[in-house]
């Protein structure tokens, strides 16, 4: 379970302080798929980094599996937004996936099995020997996802993982993430600035306001578990939900402007 209580994060330094997050309270149950949506610069990455133990909150509390986060928690994997920079360019794809397993102390045979399984789970069964820079952007992000899967995390955090790939690849990757979640059953926190993507993917959508950032709404997505790019996106309920989220964000902007 992920618990965030009255989280505040202010970046300080050289006279200029930035209040990235003002007041975030949010809970994610084990095995849930929650999407966090908010405009660029509202502090989504900051939120994930606090959860991942890469950043210390200014105030408030962050707990993963009942433990207060002070450093990177056990069993948590992050897929970063900058896929091109999160893979080691001097390691082959399989070695990239294997590296965290090595530091986990997993034996050689088991490592190899996990690498193969995770690569085929993302549809890259035969790319193990390639270097990351020999792959397209979409494939690189698949590798990053495979690395997270192989780590066998209980919690997976994804930071706008598909913001920089083309629309077709993006649709494929969205479905891949759903499949992975259904197959491995981890808790998933997926951050995006794209309202449609958030509604399409999540069981629940958390809407963040623009800076100064707080939670605008916590919305259950009552669509069926089987989602399909064409059918789901044209369902009346889907359109209703996305319109609702959109309206909430617009409304909040109006209030802020006044």
């Amino acid at each position: 379970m992920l618990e965030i209580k009255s989280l505040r994060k202010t970046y300080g330094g050289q006279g200029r302080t930035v209040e990235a997050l003002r007041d975030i309270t949010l809970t994610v149950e084990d095995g849930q798929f929650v999407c966090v949506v908010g405009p660029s610069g509202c502090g989504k990455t900051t939120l994930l980094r606090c959860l991942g133990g890469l950043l210390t909150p200014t105030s408030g509390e962050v707990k993963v599996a009942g433990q207060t986060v002070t450093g990177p928690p056990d069993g948590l994997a992050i897929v970063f937004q900058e896929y091109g920079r999160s893979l080691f360019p001097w390691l082959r794809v399989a070695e990239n996936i294997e590296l965290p397993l090595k530091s986990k102390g997993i034996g050689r045979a088991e490592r190899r099995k996990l690498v193969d399984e995770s690569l085929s789970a993302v549809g890259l069964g035969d790319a193990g020997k390639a270097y990351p820079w020999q792959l397209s952007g979409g494939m690189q992000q698949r590798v990053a996802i495979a690395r997270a899967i192989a780590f066998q995390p209980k919690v997976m955090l994804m930071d706008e993982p598909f913001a920089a790939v083309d629309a077709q690849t993006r649709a494929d990757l969205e479905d891949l993430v759903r499949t992975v979640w259904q197959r491995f059953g981890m808790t998933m926190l997926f951050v995006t600035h794209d309202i449609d993507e958030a509604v399409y993917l999540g069981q629940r959508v958390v809407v963040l306001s623009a800076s100064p950032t707080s939670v605008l709404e916590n919305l259950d997505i009552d669509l069926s578990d089987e989602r399909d790019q064409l059918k789901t996106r044209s369902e009346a309920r889907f359109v209703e939900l996305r319109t609702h989220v959109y309206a909430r964000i617009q409304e909040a902007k109006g209030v802020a402007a006044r």
Partner: protein
Amino acid sequence: MTRVLSRTGLLLGLPVVLLVTWWFASAGSKSFYQPPLETIIKVFPDTWTGARFKSDVFPSLIRLFIGYSLAVLLGITLGVLIGANRRLRALVEPLLEFLRAIPPPVLVPILILIAGIGNPTKVLVIVIGGVWPVLLNTVEGVRGVDEVLSDTCRSYRIGGWLRLRTFILRAASPQIVVGARQALSISIIMMVIGELLGATNGLGYTVVEFQRGFQIPEMWSGVFVLGLLGVLLSLAFTLVERRVLNWYHGARAAERSGH
């Protein structure tokens, strides 16, 4: 195949032209100090194979090898420590700037005073000259490691020796290689300088001995040996670099082609 040939051609073209020009320009020269190239080449085999190889070339090579290796190792070790530690960096950076500004050859007499004129001093001379480029480039390389990769390591709890070996050193390797290449040519220069003062054998010593004994063709041939040594070591370095930085050149090419 044709590419290899044309590259070899480019590589050897100018040196061959120069040598041929020298050959004809110096042919029949009566000048004592500028003997014909033909004479220099004639004395070359007798001068540098056999006994002299063992007594002078070999000791020089060993000293160069040890001195250069130590310079690279020391440079990388200190460079990683300083580069990874912001406070230490702030503390030692002014000192490094000062030490770097001292031309290493002026330290040779001081070293001789302190450590005598034996082999350790000659190795130390090479280390003192070669360590700077490696050290400073390693510091830059370690400082410039990618933050996202750094976060990736933290998040996946990749730490200690594994992190050093598979992240820090590899990420800094393009810069370390630049430093190591500069250190190689400096090391050869320092090797010769170390052998000019108070030595009893070695390449530098032999060249000076020939000059003092007015064996001018032999002296010239010694200069050739040093030049050849530099070229061969630089070629060997390029081969190693290709292996170590294969990923780097590949990634750069992929970036340029607009991935």
